[in-house]
């Protein structure tokens, strides 16, 4: 039997503040054992035609996971594996996904980077229904755009560091393009995550989250399968930072990364770099030409993260020896080297200032975060006008870097720290402390759209707002 779940927009506003209250409705899961939703039809009439059989099943459940033989954790994950299984879908070809929530709390799965309707995007703030404890749901959408994306939980955690993105609820969604952005011989998926979080006091006096363990593809350095390569190969690395809060810096000694796409979108200039900075929720697609035979560590350039497990061994065929780690290098990253240096040719129709500030709540508390002086859910939605080009001006007046994410759309970087660029389309951009980034958004996907910092502790503390089509 398949019955719809109530549309929360028609009942209570499903904010993160009332998440627990909303989750408490999980008891009603007994009455609502499953639900089915399709693109643009969030409240299917149960008497209507049955939903299409699912192409993909996602089971959410607790799993005992071995990051290394000496480090075992218990966390929520998808399909009993970390990361969740790789979902390969085709752009423009509808997909139906069945999700079963075996946890004792409500959950929701967000399809990060996909331009899909609000009711299936996987954000309760936009109106996507949560999947109650013990319940199932079935959703359908047409994947777009192509590229490297991911799916993950979108529940708050607050001070419960086993919830939200602190857990193992994430996986790669690869939307196959009609044509590959660049020729390659092999591909590898690398999903970064940090584990065993705890609160510490930050340098600026406020509380923050740090981690005891880091991993790539669910294993600490030395405990996952090594990447096997051959000399001369061009290997396309699909890298997703699924950390709840940490940006990571990756390098591979004696090799360079040729960036072909950021957040799944091809870049105008496929520049080569020695070092990758990848913020929480960002994705990088990069080709490495295997021209330095040896045994290497592809991992964090910062020793403390690499020692915590952030790395994977890369082995050339017929080579043996101890893997060599990348040397620590100055941490530098500039999005603009992948874009056109000329300003965008389009003038904005509307300018939307978005000022990021924080309010101190005590040395033993997380700061309260605000956009334009308001914390979610106390803020009013920002209105978008369909078809118009909105220039989003991200002004970060805080002392933290923020990887801000816009759901259901991509934006084009227009300027970074006052320097013009164009042609780089992203859905996450790190706005460094004290800096301003401008990005153009063409409002072409109606429906409520969430904008937030992708650091779990920041979004839990009010750093989000809703864009609403006028």
């Amino acid at each position, binding site marked *: 039997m398949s019955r719809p779940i109530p549309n929360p927009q028609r009942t209570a506003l499903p904010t993160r503040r009332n998440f627990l209250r909303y989750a408490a409705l999980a008891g009603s899961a007994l009455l609502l054992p499953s639900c089915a939703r399709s693109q643009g039809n969030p409240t299917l009439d149960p008497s209507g035609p049955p939903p299409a059989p699912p192409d993909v099943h996602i089971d959410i459940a607790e799993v005992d996971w071995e990051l290394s033989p000496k480090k075992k954790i218990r966390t929520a994950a998808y399909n009993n594996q970390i990361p969740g299984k790789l979902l390969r879908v085709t752009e423009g070809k509808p997909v139906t996904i069945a999700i079963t929530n075996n946890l004792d709390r409500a959950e929701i799965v967000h399809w990060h980077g996909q331009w899909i309707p609000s009711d299936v995007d996987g954000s309760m703030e936009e109106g996507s229904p949560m999947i109650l404890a013990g319940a199932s749901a079935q959703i359908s959408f047409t994947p777009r755009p192509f590229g490297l994306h991911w799916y993950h939980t979108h529940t708050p955690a607050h001070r419960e560091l086993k919830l939200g993105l602190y857990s193992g609820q994430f996986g790669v969604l690869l939307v196959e393009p009609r044509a590959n952005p660049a020729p390659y011989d092999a591909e590898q998926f690398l999903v970064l995550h940090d584990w*065993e979080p*705890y609160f*510490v*006091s*930050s*340098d*600026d*006096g*406020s*509380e923050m989250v*740090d*981690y*005891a363990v880091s991993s790539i593809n669910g294993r600490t350095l030395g405990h996952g399968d090594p990447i096997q390569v051959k000399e001369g190969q061009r290997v396309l690395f699909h890298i997703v930072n699924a950390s709840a809060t*940490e*940006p990571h*810096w990756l390098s591979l000694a004696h090799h360079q990364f040729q960036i072909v796409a950021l957040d799944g979108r091809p870049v105008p200039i496929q520049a080569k770099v020695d070092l990758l900075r990848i913020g929480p929720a960002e994705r990088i697609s990069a080709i490495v030409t295997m021209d330095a035979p040896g045994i290497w560590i592809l991992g964090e350039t*910062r020793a*403390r*993260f690499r020692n915590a497990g952030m790395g994977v061994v890369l082995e050339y065929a017929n080579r043996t020896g101890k893997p060599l780690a990348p040397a*620590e290098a100055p*941490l530098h990253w500039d999005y603009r080297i992948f874009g056109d240096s000329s300003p965008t040719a389009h003038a904005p129709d509307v300018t939307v200032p978005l000022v990021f500030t924080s309010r*101190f*709540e*005590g*040395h*033993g*508390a997380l700061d309260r975060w605000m956009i334009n002086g308001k914390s979610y859910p106390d803020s009013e939605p920002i209105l978008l006008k369909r078809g118009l080009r909105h220039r989003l001006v991200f002004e970060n007046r805080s002392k933290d*870097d923020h990887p801000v994410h816009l759901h259901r759309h991509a934006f084009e970087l227009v300027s970074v720290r006052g320097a013009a660029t164009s042609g780089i389309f992203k859905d996450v951009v790190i706005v460094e402390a004290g800096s301003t980034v401008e990005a153009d958004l063409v409002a072409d996907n109606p429906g409520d759209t969430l904008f937030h910092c992708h650091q779990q502790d920041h979004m839990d503390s009010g750093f989000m707002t809703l864009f609403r089509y006028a």
Partner: protein
Amino acid sequence: MRHAWLALATACTLSVVARPALAQGNYEIQVYGAETQAPGTTMVELHSNFTADGQKQFIDGVDPTNHAEHETIEITQGLNDWSEVGFYIFTSEQSGTGIQWVGDHIRPRVRIPERWRWPVGVSLSMEAGYQRAFFSQDTWTWEIRPIVDKTVGRWYFAVNPALERTWHGPDVNLGVGFSPAAKFSYDFTKQISGGLEYYADYGSITNIASLHNQQQQLFPAIDLNVSPKWEINFGVGIGPTAATDHWIVKGILGRRFDWGRKTSQ
């Protein structure tokens, strides 16, 4: 740097203070926080304590504390994320004696790493050293100091139930003394915290001194968290018992140096 109360963790308290009240030293007046210095960092602190109203008589050849200005240099090196070692140079300046070297101490300390995710901060300090007999009859002393602290929102709490032992001096036979310290404070702003510090010496744990002979001090104190590299603490202490210096003004100025330590970005 962590916030200032935790950054103050590199110091010690009344460790030079011998149990007999009349030998009160007041070279370092600080409640430990549980945090240790990060590896690759060095904290250099200057403790300045002025006894505005203290012991005015020479007793058993020990210099009186009244109007004594005590300057202590403390250098603490972080070893790893769970240990540090501190070194102290104690000095005293008083009318008629000029600036005098008093003694030196060394203080290793270990802590429960934050990654263990204990609900409270816990560390254990040991301190040993020498002080000249002109300033303390007990010339060689040792101290073990458990430290527990907790920050909740704007509130901070710390307790240091320290135990002391004299290795050389008249108090050798007194056994182990109990010298607890405690603190609570409130974050008025990100930069300014204020609260109350408590220091005491109850004498031997097997023979607690009478209240009259106990040392009891209360310090209303503020901490200024102006920069991760600096720590600033200021307080005025009141000693209500006969065995305690009655008025003390204390200040701590600390500067942290990073020796190539990379902060996360």
